[in-house]
């Protein structure tokens, strides 16, 4: 069962602004269990995408540095 604590944990690790985090923490008590799970899934999905993109970006930069060093 999804709880408010689960949401807080996900929000803590998310890229959402502090203002939006607080807003969702306040609004969470009015959400049904299903909606809360959906919200958590959405935030997790966004965080995962951002993390993947960030890694991809760093990979590219590393590749660039490596190529530069090999020249």
């Amino acid at each position: 069962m999804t709880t408010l604590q689960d949401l807080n944990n996900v929000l803590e690790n998310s890229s959402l602004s502090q203002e939006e985090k607080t807003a969702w923490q306040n609004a969470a008590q009015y959400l049904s269990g299903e909606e809360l799970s959906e919200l958590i899934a959405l935030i997790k999905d966004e965080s995962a995408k951002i993390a993947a993109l960030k890694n991809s970006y760093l990979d590219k930069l590393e590749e660039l540095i490596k190529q530069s060093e090999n020249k």
Partner: protein
Amino acid sequence: MAREGSRDVDPRVYLDIQIPKNREFPGSPVRGQFIKKELEKSPPDVREAARKIEEEYTQKAELIVREGAENRLDLLEKVFKRVLEAVDLDSREKVLAALAEVIPFVGVLYAVSGKRLTFERSDAGWPLPRLENINWTERGLYLISEIVGSGHVIVGLKRFAFKGIASITRRRLAQVNTQQEEGHPLAPGFTNLLPTDAPKMEVEKERVEVEIK
């Protein structure tokens, strides 16, 4: 210093510090710091290429953030719609019907007639009025809501009730006084309506009797 397979790069190899335990962003801050330092030492053409990569990344990140925000707004809309459904105000036609019920005594009319005004959307998009049958429970609820929902009615009822009680009290007190003046015993059930000076009246009566003796 460069390594094969950049995806498996472990920053500890370079900087000998701990990777943050947060796996949502695996090692990014440390890895980013290292790359930044390396870029600072790089020639201008490499830094320019890195800037372009960063621009591309920022655009993609903005798209993800925007998509996430839209998804959360959709969820919020769903929650809002659920609340509106709960109070039966989830369409323009229902809001229109509710507005009609704000008019005083419309609820009484519904309760008495057993019908209520609702609206249906026509093919052209206009709200079409129609009368819908309501059951006894709903008629009762309309009646209660009308009484509870209208301060004017409640005030009217209160005044009516107070006027009625005051009138009955005055009438009974007058009756009690008349009976006492005529020497009749108090009628049963009237004792509670005696004014606060009732014992005084008894005393006066005793004094009169003594004088006669």
